[in-house]
């Protein structure tokens, strides 16, 4: 398993590396002292797990996650602050308190291994820019944050330079354009219905014919999305396959 450590303190990184040296199957491929460096290195290495400090100069660990299209498995490392609890509440993989207790580290690593079994397909997928429906994205809305599996998102709605994600009872905004997402989302699960919406096919309740040869899709949450004429042709083709 490839790991990257992001922490602004050299000593803290060294200490964690030393602790991780006990685990032969975990390879610390790189380390970063700040968010910008971290983003670059994560994009480059596509690690299986990132040990991420929350408080760093300039940008926080959360900022780092927001800058990534696809969130890697994250284990937060933090000394003592309110973020730790917050991150955990919204199903972050895990967090470790510094100084790190070896037993807790071992637990956290076990969890990563369970949720992230090594398989070939995974490695192939990582090379491509394509996002898979079981990839997770990090979403922050004010004080709340989530790791959301893409397959949980019912609907993407364009709002200027932002996109609103609809999942469970939440609908936070992310700083991405709909076109950007359209290019990367898995076309087996997600469909660009019109200029403003990408829908998750798993959340469709029923489909009716609509004006001008278009379609009206009723989602399971009751929301109605119009499919433009041009897209309707594609849609019908796709569904008949």
């Amino acid at each position, binding site marked *: 398993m490839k790991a990257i450590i992001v922490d602004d*303190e050299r*000593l803290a990184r060294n*200490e964690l590396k030393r602790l991780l040296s006990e685990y032969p199957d975990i390879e610390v491929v790189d380390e970063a002292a700040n968010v910008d460096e971290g983003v670059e290195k994560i994009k480059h290495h596509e690690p299986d797990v990132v040990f991420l400090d929350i408080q760093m100069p300039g940008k926080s660990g959360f900022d780092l996650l927001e800058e990534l299209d696809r969130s890697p498995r994250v284990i937060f490392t933090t000394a003592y602050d309110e973020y730790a609890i917050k991150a955990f509440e919204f199903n972050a993989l895990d967090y470790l*308190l510094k100084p*790190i207790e070896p037993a807790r580290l071992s637990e956290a690593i076990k969890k990563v291994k369970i949720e992230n079994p090594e398989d070939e397909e995974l490695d192939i997928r990582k090379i491509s820019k394509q996002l898979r429906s079981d990839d997770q994205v990090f979403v922050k809305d004010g004080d709340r944050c989530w790791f959301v599996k893409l397959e949980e998102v019912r609907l993407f709605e364009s709002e200027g330079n932002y996109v609103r994600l609809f999942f469970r009872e939440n609908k936070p905004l992310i700083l991405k354009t709909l076109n950007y997402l359209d290019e990367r989302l898995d076309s087996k699960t997600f469909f660009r219905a019109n200029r403003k919406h990408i829908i998750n096919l798993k959340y469709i309740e029923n489909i009716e014919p609509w004006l001008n040869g278009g379609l009206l899709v009723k989602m399971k949450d009751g929301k109605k999305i119009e499919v433009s004429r041009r897209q309707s042709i594609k849609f019908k083709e796709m569904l008949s396959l």
Partner: protein
Amino acid sequence: MIDLLRDNRLKFYGLLQIVGWGGYGVLNLLIMATMRFGRERETLINWTMISSVVLIIIAGIAVSHLFRMLIIKLNWLHLELKYLAPRLVFGAMVCGIAIVIIISLPFYFDSNLNFDFQQLSNSLPFLLMHWINLSIIMLLWSLIYFTIHYFENFQQAEIERFVWEAAVKDFELKTLKSQLNPHFMFNAMNGIRALIEEDPEKAKRSITQLSNIFRYSLNVERSETVPLEDEIKTVNDYLTLEQVRYEERLRFSVDIEPAVYFVEIPPMMVQTLVENGIKHGISKLPKGGSISVKAAKNGDNLIIKISNSGNLNEAEMNNSKGFGLANTKHRLSLLYGEKASFTIKNAEKMVEAVIKIPIGGRENESYHS
């Protein structure tokens, strides 16, 4: 203390009742005597007069005492004036009638204990006058009673307010002596853990420094002020430890004029500002920065100047994060009043905090714990 007060209050009430009604009785007696002045064959005072006056005194005390019980029972002491006034007027009138009945009743029985209606109807105008007179007296009584109570309540509230204020001040001072930032503690421990392998000698020194800081922060809870020297020693240890974490990202200097080593200052005050400087200034800069602490004598004052890299965000300072700064100000004013001051401002890419403390004098020594 309170029992004594209550005891005295009852005595005071009793005394006032006796003196008041006694005075009123004597006054009545004098008036009657004056009216008889000049009449021959009659003495100025006779036994009938005395007995009626004694009756007035007893009736007055008894009725007003019952009235007082009623006032307490009905909790009139806490009524607003607009509700209280009509009740008092009515009450005074009822009391007036009661007293009139008590004092005049004996005069309407003849020697065979038969009631003499004829005489009653003859003296009705006289009784009416008596009633009005006594109602006014009762009203006056109420006025005195309530005035004393209001005055006493006011005093009581004042005392409570002082006691409360002192407690609050004490509490504030205790909490304002901000404790060590736990974030710092854990990060320092983590750094030391890494040092154990890398540089055991430095790790040992760091543990000693951390112990010093910890001990200092525990001990100062007991004192209002400490010599500047002690505080600076802690600040030095603190900065050295933070340098273990931040390495080349933290540069610091501490420069204290020997003349002010022993000036007493509120503990943890410089320390907190230095911590703030690192937390809000240097730790936010990817390339780090510097912090300097200077202390010098200026006239009768000690001037401590802490400047660190960074930028003071006014908006941020004014909301929750400014709490530490407001605390510093508040703490200084609690201890030194107007004589001390605290300012913080941006100055050429640095944030500059300045504390002014009068040498050799707390304004208020009474809050020594």
